[in-house]
């Protein structure tokens, strides 16, 4: 089994893990957005709460959720490992002049964007996920037709009423957008899926995803804040 170790300690293997975890997280974003959009339903949060309750209690979902955490950590860990290697590869003396004309700035700043996103994820988990799962705070439980359902909606509504929080949230969505702007197509390139016939489609979907999904996320707090 030495080959597995060899493969995943090689730069290419580590990049493969980055790409695979990245694509999983992209998928996760889509699902998460679908759920979040229920916040916009004008029913006092009922649909959203039922959805949230289901997500946090279903065994399969919880299993996938643990995987999701693991992938976030793996994505981060690999990024750190590769960044260290890449810094070392450049050597102690950097260039005095760098023109930056030959590549897009998002591609050169995935690390910074990723760090912003990581900080956001941590605060985001602290504010919502940790309370939902009862690690702190006291989330209220509602009674929907005899079933106890935790009232995540009210919690969300409380946070999205704070202007600074909405601003921060929108800013972080922008970071995600830029991260995806490069990351989506980049993951396919790393997987070796670069083919003249399909590159165009991958690029268009990637760019559209990078704009629409974060925009969708950002729209919700803005809407809730202003209405």
């Amino acid at each position, binding site marked *: 089994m030495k080959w597995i170790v060899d493969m995943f300690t090689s730069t290419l293997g580590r990049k493969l893990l980055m790409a695979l975890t990245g694509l999983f997280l992209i998928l996760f974003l889509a699902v998460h957005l679908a759920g979040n959009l229920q916040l916009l339903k004008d029913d006092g949060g009922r649909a959203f709460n039922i959805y949230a309750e289901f997500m946090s209690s279903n065994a399969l979902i919880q299993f996938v959720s643990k995987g999701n955490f693991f992938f976030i950590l793996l994505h981060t860990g690999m990024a750190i490992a590769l960044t260290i290697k890449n810094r070392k590869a450049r050597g102690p003396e950097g260039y005095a002049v760098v023109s930056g004309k*030959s590549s897009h700035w998002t591609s050169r700043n995935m690390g910074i964007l990723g760090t912003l996103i990581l900080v956001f994820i941590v605060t985001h988990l602290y504010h919502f996920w940790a309370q939902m799962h009862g690690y702190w705070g006291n989330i209220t439980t509602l009674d929907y037709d005899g079933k106890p359902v935790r009232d995540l909606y009210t919690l969300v509504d409380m946070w999205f009423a704070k202007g600074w929080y909405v601003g921060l949230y929108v800013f972080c969505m922008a970071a995600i957008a830029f991260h995806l702007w490069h990351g989506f197509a980049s993951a396919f390139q790393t997987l070796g899926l670069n083919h003249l016939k399909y590159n165009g489609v991958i690029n268009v979907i990637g760019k559209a995803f990078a704009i629409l999904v974060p925009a969708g996320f950002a729209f919700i707090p803005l809407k809730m804040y202003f209405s």
Partner: protein
Amino acid sequence: MKITLKIWRQQGPNTKGHFKTYKLDHVSTDMSFLEMLDVLNQDLIKKGEEPVAFDHDCREGICGMCSLYINGRPHGPLQTTTCQLHMRTFSDGETITIEPWRASAFPILKDLVVDRSAFDRIQQAGGYISVNTGGVPDANEIPISKKIADEAMDAAQCIGCGACVAACKNASAMLFVSAKVSQFALLPQGKPERKERVEKMVAQMDAEGFGACTNTRACEAECPKGIQITNIARMNREYFSAMVSSYEVAAGEGGAG
């Protein structure tokens, strides 16, 4: 035209380097960039100052020896080799900063001269088809689709200058390595050793201390021969499929005694 040059001077591999500024006031727009440096060096020698060491040889854009990082870009502002860059690309009075390729795998030998033998070692690790001289089939024995041959030629055009490494923020050699891997992966002659080749070359590339590819495409934008990152994707494919499917031969290689 008049120009100001900021050039990296470094006496040897283990000494500290620094920028030094020179002024040149008799530069012709028809000069190539290297001829401009020749003129500078002639001036320096006359003044009793040591000339600037830089690598160059064919001066027609094919040997891959010239290697200057000019105003923040390998081989300067045009997508060509330094020797094919002409002074008409610059404007009168301009300040031009010249640095060596910067990468741990390319240690500086003197001034602007770096040691690129890491590239040779990667090629030695597997950048060949194991055929001895003689005893090969007729050249037309195996037809090769024109498109495949052309694509292999696109990859084979790499001149091994190292601009890809210099351009990459991670000092990654992926474009260089993938060009060779691609050439042989595309051609039927390269198929028998396809898996071992990519495994060995990637391992050597990592051992030399080059960085990882983050798909910024800077290499492709700066490559004087227009090698494309399609080759990197191909190498990734080749590598992953080789790693999961290559096998060790259980029995020894020895023939009948």
